């Protein structure tokens, strides 16, 4: 009884508190419509053509705000490490029951197609929507499919983590090479001609960095998914 009253008090007070905060915010926002300001993004759009990349978001993510992306994959890297630390200490039991034969074969058939699509999204990141993050996560979802359909499947841990390490190192090294060559960390030191815009080999380091990001994200997400699934099959 007491507990029930507690719950309803919390509901009402939570409702009132959050409504108060949000109504205040809304009131302020609706009263002050933003004036037309010249945004930094508009200036970046005019500068974008110099890099020879058709997708402006990719240029901003990988080049103009490249350090954000470096920090972002650092967050993902640390989180993957933490998840591995949390969920890896349990022994993985042998599984008695095999999953359906058709399911196994079909998912094995589907896996290369998913990986192909992921790689496409990754490599065409500077030409069309998509890029390293999306492509990497798509590849990881293919791995997830294999893990769900076949209990005995395991991601080759050492290969994947070596791949991840090399991707991480090469991202920072690309930045440092830029610092040495044109005195600008993460600067675009490879040729990036405007005339080549729209071609697969355009944009200098930008597609290169996005592929590195894709490899890193894909391997990290695969490891995260593997830890989660294996851990949950545990008992």
């Amino acid at each position, binding site marked *: 009884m007491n507990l029930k009253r507690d719950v309803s008090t919390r509901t009402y007070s939570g409702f009132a508190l959050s409504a108060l905060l949000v109504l205040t915010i809304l009131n302020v926002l609706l009263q002050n419509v933003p004036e037309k300001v010249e945004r930094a993004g508009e200036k970046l759009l005019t500068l974008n053509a110099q890099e020879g990349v058709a997708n402006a978001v990719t240029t901003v993510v990988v080049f103009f705000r490249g350090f*954000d992306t*470096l920090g972002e994959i650092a967050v993902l*890297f640390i989180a993957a490490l933490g998840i591995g630390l949390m969920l890896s200490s349990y022994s993985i039991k042998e599984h008695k029951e095999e999953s359906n034969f058709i399911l196994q074969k079909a998912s094995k058939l589907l896996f290369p197609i998913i990986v192909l699509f992921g790689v496409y999204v990754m490599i065409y990141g500077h030409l069309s929507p998509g890029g390293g993050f999306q492509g990497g996560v798509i590849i990881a979802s293919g791995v997830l499919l294999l893990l769900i359909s076949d209990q005995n499947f395991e991601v080759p841990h050492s290969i994947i983590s070596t791949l991840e390490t090399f991707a991480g190192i090469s991202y920072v090294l690309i930045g440092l090479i830029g610092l040495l060559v044109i005195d600008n960390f993460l600067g675009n030191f490879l040729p990036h001609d405007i005339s080549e815009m729209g071609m697969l080999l355009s944009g200098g380091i930008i597609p290169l960095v996005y592929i590195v990001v894709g490899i890193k994200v894909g391997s990290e997400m695969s490891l995260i998914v593997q830890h989660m699934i294996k851990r949950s099959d545990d008992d």
Partner: protein
Amino acid sequence: MSSIYFIALPLLFGFATPLLAKLGKNGIAYVSTLMQAGLFLLALSLLLSTTWHVEVISIAPPLGISFVLNKASLFFVLLFTFMMMMFSFYYLGLRKTDPYKSEGKFFILINMLLAASIGLVLSSDIFNAYVFFEIAGVSAYILSAYRKTPKALEAGLKYLITGMIASIFLLLAITLIYIYLGSLNLAVLSQTFHTLPYNIKVLISLFLLIGFGFKVEIFPLNFWVTDVYEGSDSLVNALFSGIVVKSYLFVFFHILYLFMPHSEFSTFLIILGVVSMVVAEIVALKQTNLKRVFAYSSLGQVGFIFAVMASENVYALTAALFIVLAHSLAKMMIFFIITSIQRSYNSVNIEILKELNSPFLRVMLLLSMLSLLGIPLLAGFVGKFLALKSFAVSGEFIILAVIVIASLIESIYYFKITANLFSKDTKREKVLLTLSQKVVFSTLALLLIAVGILPWLFSGVINDAAHIMMDNAAYVQALMEVTQ
């Protein structure tokens, strides 16, 4: 000379750790320590030459991200690299059976934490600061939960949930800033922020206060701090209290000074800081767990620093930087001492000090507590004296009185600890200390004494830092002058 190395090298080290782990169990620890020592020496060498250095990433400001190294941020970079170096030296002396020993993962986390703390201090782009905020946050959550005991996991969960809420409000503030001002660069924002309508200004400052308030451990938002300190290992607490909080404090006040110089909110912030100091000191009286006692003492000190920094004048800021220095040194030492005691006696209760069999540690603990209290001839005195003087000069006697009363309360529980420390109970076996740990303790103690006796040795650097931190025009000029 480039300031990017302070961030890029720890990041590179973190990414490369799985490869470096093949060097053997201790190899990675030595490499990491060497790198941190190298960064510290680099920072020391920059002390002689650098005035302003803007490192451009990809594209010149105000459009792109850039890192600003001046006397103010250099002071913090020096502090962080030095603290991290001390931490690594202490770590090298841990026994082989220690749960943190021979773990490559631990080095990834502490180096990422170092990179993120330095990045927060150097970055001149508010969204980039958010990314570093998250890196520091995530590595701190994992460090909290590292031992996977129920207590540690609970600390990690509490830290993570509050950190998530903080980052949501910070993100909301950043989106509002971009919608209304169209830029993310701190220099541009400092010129345009005052043109905002008053309501929007209040809203953005409120969200920034909530976002950073969780992290700088200010009064209504610091309910989680002591649980996190108790749950996580005292080795890790040394990092939290010595490095992480300091970088958040710097960023918060850096943004405050740039956006709203001499704002109408400063009285409010001073009161907030003083209240959180008083509350923390009063609650600390009841505690019997050493980690909790010093967590509350940390809250009190941070509240004090917050109040002093919020009064926005150069003298107060000089005082605040002295307190930051003294507090980092003393707190790191105290948490190392607690770690040593805990590793030997497997307890962190206040009673265990009665049986502490190590004259060296007893003297060190006493020294650092006296410094925290602000006894003359020790580091804590300089900052406290200057801070009280600056409050007296500006005529805020109520705040001055409250701070003095809070310090008196603080002295009560330090006295309680000291009484335990020098009781004549039967002692246990000796606490084992390796050479490198003794070197760390002696270095920290020497610095505490040196800052106390010879404050003029440090006051040059700190004065410059305080002047430059308040100098908005120079910051804007330095960022605007840069061209690709």
